[in-house]
């Protein structure tokens, strides 16, 4: 080796060191930026003073574990009459689980038909489903609000329209009206149908058709082929879709806020939003406790599923 190449290697090494240092500086800044609010909310949740103005990064004057949990006690026990946090938590879990499971099942039925049957108008229908999806159902919030309002009033309308049915209690319909979790679930399902049908059609397309053809030669009906063969095959990916739909539903705020008008029917996001906008400075600590309780499971789910999520995000982009 000559001295020239040696000196070039030294220069290369120095450059490399500089580059690496630069990379780490950027990483440290980015991680600090990303995590600062997270650390801050952690600190706020355990800070016994509970208000915005006196919060310090390390909670001060804490003598016991009991004191550390002041905000949690306030949120979960003492304040539940004014801010029914348990209701919100329950409502969110209820709405999100039912929405995600039903969405996956109903969309899977449509997707299977699109994937396996050939019929007149199939193409147009598929394009229509995709086109409709361009119109976000949030934009139609006025219309959705009025639909749910009318569904809720069915218990008044039916006895008026058909007096002989007066004896029956029709208030069952208000379970799907305005200010009801059932109505919100319907709205979410309707909005998610198009995109999920498309997504799952892709999954079904990836299952070779030979499988169902051989089953049908053996005399299986379409339903049996779907339910006993294809569905179990795509179940893992459907589970991921269901979990993502679950997270998305929990996070949804706009429609929930428009449709749910009553403190006890609020979901977590609507509740937490109203909690803190009532009195920002005073309820800061309790809001932080609620935020921590709501966000932690979702963050864990997200990080656990990050590869699938990244796959879903980039599917359209990195294909070709």
């Amino acid at each position: 080796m000559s001295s020239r190449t040696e000196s070039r290697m030294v220069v290369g090494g120095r450059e490399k060191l500089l580059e690496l240092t630069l990379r780490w500086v950027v990483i440290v800044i980015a991680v600090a930026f990303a995590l600062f609010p997270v650390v801050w909310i952690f600190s706020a949740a355990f800070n016994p003073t509970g208000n915005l103005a006196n919060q310090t990064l390390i909670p001060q004057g804490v003598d016991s574990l009991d004191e550390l949990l002041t905000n949690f006690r306030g949120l979960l026990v003492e304040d539940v009459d004014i801010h029914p946090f348990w209701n919100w938590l329950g409502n969110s879990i209820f709405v999100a689980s039912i929405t995600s499971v039903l969405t996956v099942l109903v969309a899977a039925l449509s997707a299977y038909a699109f994937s396996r049957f050939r019929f007149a108008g199939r193409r147009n229908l598929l394009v229509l489903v995709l086109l409709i999806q361009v119109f976000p159902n949030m934009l139609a919030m006025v219309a959705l609000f009025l639909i749910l309002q009318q569904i809720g009033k069915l218990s008044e309308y039916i006895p008026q329209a058909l007096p002989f049915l007066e004896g029956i209690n029709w208030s069952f319909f208000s379970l799907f009206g305005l200010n009801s979790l059932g109505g919100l679930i319907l709205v979410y399902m309707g909005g998610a149908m198009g995109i999920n049908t498309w997504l799952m059609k892709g999954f079904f397309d990836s299952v070779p058709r030979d499988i169902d053809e051989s089953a049908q030669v053996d005399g299986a009906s379409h339903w049996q082929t779907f339910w006993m063969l294809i569905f179990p095959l795509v179940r893992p990916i459907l589970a991921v879709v269901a979990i993502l739909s679950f997270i998305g539903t929990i996070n949804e705020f706009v429609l929930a806020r428009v449709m749910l008008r009553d403190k006890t029917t609020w979901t977590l996001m609507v509740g937490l939003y109203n909690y803190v906008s009532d009195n920002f400075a005073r309820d800061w600590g309790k809001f932080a406790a609620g935020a921590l309780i709501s966000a932690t499971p979702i963050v864990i789910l997200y990080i656990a599923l990050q590869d699938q999520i990244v796959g879903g995000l980039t599917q359209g982009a990195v294909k070709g």
Partner: protein
Amino acid sequence: MSALSTNAGGPKGLPALISGQILKLIGLAILDAFGLLLFYAFWFSGNTALALIIAVITIGMNVVIFVPRLYPLRWMSPGLALMILLVIYPLLFTVSTAFTNYSDGHLFSKEQAIALHSKATFTPEDAPTYRFTPYVNKADPTDYALWLTREGDAGTEVIFAKEGEPLVVLEGVEPEPPEEYEGYRPLERRELVAALSVLETAQFGEEPNTVTVVSAARGVAARSLQRYVWNAELNGLEDRQTGLFYAADDETGSFIANKGRAEQQELQPGYWVGVGFNNFRRFVESPALRGPLVQVFVWTVAFAFFSVMTTFVAGLIMALVLNSPDIPGRKVIRSLLIIPYAIPGVISILVWKGMMNPNLGVLARSFGINPPWFSDPLWAKIGILLINLWLGYPYMMLICSGALQAIPTDIYEASSVDGANPWQRFWNITLPLLLVTVGPLLIASFTYNFNNFVVVEAFNKGGPPIPGTLTPAGYTDILISYTYRLAFGSGRGADYGLASAITIIIFAIVAGVTLLQFRFTGQWEEVSENV
């Protein structure tokens, strides 16, 4: 495989088939009964469009079940029904509402509004008066009734009047109030004081034939009359109390009376009417509407553009920084960096809002960063972009690192042989190749931020408000939040017609951008191939 063929042929097959058929018919019958019920109830209550949608869904279900050729649609029927009711119908509704004056004060159809006004009553000066004895329902202490007597030429007229039920003229009974009548008993004197306020405001009888208490102290009640009477010939409501005539103006959906020379009086509520392109025209013609809308529109575009730009640049830098085998623990760092993306958006925004709180928040107290985030238009815009950067860069980082890994390494090798420096390599190779794959997602991100209601609403409700506007609007309001304020905003009344008109404008823009995205990526061709 044996499990699959239980239903196929064999001696068991036929009964199973028949019972399946019966089950199907029973299910369909229940569905039809419900469909008919809903159709009739909606139709009767004036929700014609909703009734028709129910009819379409119900008939569609039947057709799909009975026509074997449509077997595939059976699979889709639940999904399609949901989409028709909750996506297509709202879309059509929004479009048609945009051409009406549907708003607070104009929520009813003309018939409904007339029926509503026809229920109003008044007590004329010379109305027949009665002496009354108050009664109360034994089972329900809030349900009152009146025992009414009136001396007439043909003897004493006796009426028993309950709330909300037709007046009953009693024939051949003693005028003396009985101890009990149809489950009602007379109010005792000590109960009377508490009941006074109710008795004096209640209407006994069924509108418009009611009796109201004139003087509880003297025990006098009077017969009320229907106040507004519809005159179909003159197309208006006669006010029998004041003698005014409220002409129905079918252009604006209002009942207007001329009172004196230049004075007009409107009877609320009016009714909704089609107004053609008026909602769209109002923006062009009214400067007080146009001003804020133009401002909101410009900010919407700027907000969406800068959001995409800042998050993309930050995300790309992080992807490039992490895209090196020399960084240990890349997976852990990436997991930490996507936390902002994983936290529910509403919560993150509220946390930021707390940190930015003037004087009290951590940015002000610990870092001395205390600009007027919430009261100054420019700082509010900077603040909202900063929060959106925090929320959005992990997404960009994820898609950029995916795209970076897809760029073949031999291109880089070839370029370094040609003597290109890293900077040149980035501008001439990495970025163009990256944009090919990430470009469509940037456009999607633009349309997403175009309608990013949550960040605007949760940060500052669109504020600070723009002064001197006809409709509530703020400096950080984007089109969708402005629409929300028009439709659900408190104070100045909801204007659904105007809100729907703006919704259509938003939809047109989003659809246009999406079309551009499809053109850009050839996704349409992809769609047609997959189809």
